[in-house]
């Protein structure tokens, strides 16, 4: 492609770290846009990006989270498109970005399906993943949607409450709208302005959702549920104590949904996508739990 520079946006910092890593490997210069609120709350990943040689640009607009980081990256790219590639981190943005990101992430679903068959000799009854922009879910679901046999559940961030501004559940509470090049479900007010959002996890804190999730929901191909901040934190602690695995707060939403609906899932094979590790969330977890 002849590009010398990579830019990306990041919420939780996972995609920023991955982008910074690949840029370091390829000897390309790298700029990562990150909402200034996320820079504060995901500090360990910011340090990793810097260590890898990336420039991390804090974005002070709007709610200072993922959406605002994407806006800043789009504006950079409008100027720099000639020598810069925009490596979008979620299944959002203009076509063909949602498709590209879904297809690269789909390796997760292909492998998970194969491993379930090898390990249990059968497909899972359910596959569950958290949905902010929705890339880990789109990646997990892709192969299961293509080949069937498993009920799919996406879990959005219920935040503190169902009040506007207190959650980031665009499929649950949003209406059709256009943001950042996608026609999708959008959290917006009566005057078509994008609403502020909240989630305890930076990676889910986004007022829209990948457009394919809207399609999945409308076509009843995937079911979507909610997990609030408190239930996600609970699930995070429970997995840590019972399995010694510290999941990211994003992934903890998927787990929290399963634990909250345990009657429905008891005795069934449930695949939960632990899309990230929670080391980056230690300061949030400590603060929220008063440790």
């Amino acid at each position, binding site marked *: 492609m002849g590009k010398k520079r990579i830019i990306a946006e990041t919420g939780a910092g996972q995609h920023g770290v991955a982008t910074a890593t690949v840029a370091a490997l390829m000897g390309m210069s790298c700029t990562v846009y990150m909402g200034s609120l996320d820079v504060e709350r995901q500090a360990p990943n910011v340090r990793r990006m810097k260590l890898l040689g990336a420039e991390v640009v804090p974005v002070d607009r709007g709610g200072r989270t993922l959406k605002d980081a994407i806006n800043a990256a789009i504006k950079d790219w409008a100027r720099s498109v000639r020598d810069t590639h925009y490596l979008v981190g979620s299944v959002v943005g203009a076509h063909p970005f949602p498709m590209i990101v879904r297809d690269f992430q789909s390796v997760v679903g292909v492998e998970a399906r194969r491993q379930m068959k090898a390990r249990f000799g059968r497909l899972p009854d359910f596959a569950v993943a958290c949905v902010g922009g929705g890339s880990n879910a789109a990646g997990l679901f892709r192969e299961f949607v293509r080949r069937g046999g498993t009920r799919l559940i996406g879990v959005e961030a219920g935040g503190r409450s169902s009040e506007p501004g207190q959650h980031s559940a665009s499929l649950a509470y949003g209406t059709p709208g256009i943001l950042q090049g996608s026609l999708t479900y*959008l959290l917006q007010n009566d005057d078509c302005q994008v609403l502020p959002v909240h989630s305890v996890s930076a990676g889910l804190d986004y007022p829209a959702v990948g457009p394919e999730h809207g399609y999945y929901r409308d076509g009843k191909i995937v079911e979507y549920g909610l997990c609030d901040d408190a239930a996600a934190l609970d699930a995070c602690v429970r997995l840590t104590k019972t399995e010694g695995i510290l999941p990211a707060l994003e992934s903890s939403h998927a787990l929290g949904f399963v634990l909250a609906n345990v009657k429905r899932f008891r005795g069934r094979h449930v695949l939960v996508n632990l899309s990230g590790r929670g080391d980056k969330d230690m300061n949030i977890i400590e603060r929220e739990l008063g440790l």
Partner: protein
Amino acid sequence: MKGHNGLYLMGNYPDPDTFIEAAVRGLDFFDFLEVGIPFSDPSADGPVITDAAEAVLARNTTFDDVLGSVRRIRERAPVGKTIYAMAYANTVFARGIGNFAEKASGAGIGGVIIPDVPFAESERFIKTFARHRMSFVRFISPETTMEQIRKIASGAEGFLYFVSMRGITGGRFDLDAATVKKIRAARKCSPVPVVLGFGIADIQSARRALDHADGFVIGTRIIEILKDGGVDAAGEFFCAIAGGVGRA
């Protein structure tokens, strides 16, 4: 003034009265007005216009409020001068394109500029606007291929918006040889004036725009002047630009 030129103002910025007054005075000199409809996520705008939108929205300004001001401008401005709305896609789409079009045309808006709707996605907007006698303004940028330019330019309505540089509003004006060639190709195919926008801030850049195109749009600089010096400073600026560019 020479050319087919427009001024851009953010709707109801810095306040409704100053906005209306600046628009009316501007239309003494300019041929058309672009009214920015404030949006929470203006992905084509630089910091100056983004700040202006945020300031207007912080006062809970609505789309209807801005249309109310447009109505008052329409009453005072010459009939032949078109008022365009520059609105982001969600502003138009989410309330229903037909509903948007009815309200906008009812307030005297003659055309709509939507920076985040590419030509390939424009059909549903063009059709609905046509029913309300509003034009859908098409964009060309330095990244548009010659083949696309011919296709986009040949059906253009209102004016053809040539984004003069790679980037967002408020950047530095710069035309390379390839871009000049594309402007020429666009003018050849377009039934309406080809107007340069993005980065034009003074007499010098306005003159250079007119060397190659049918007109120019000034936006960011006007917003800065309105913020610092109010409507009188803006009036002086309009007069200076018109004088500097020369008579038609």
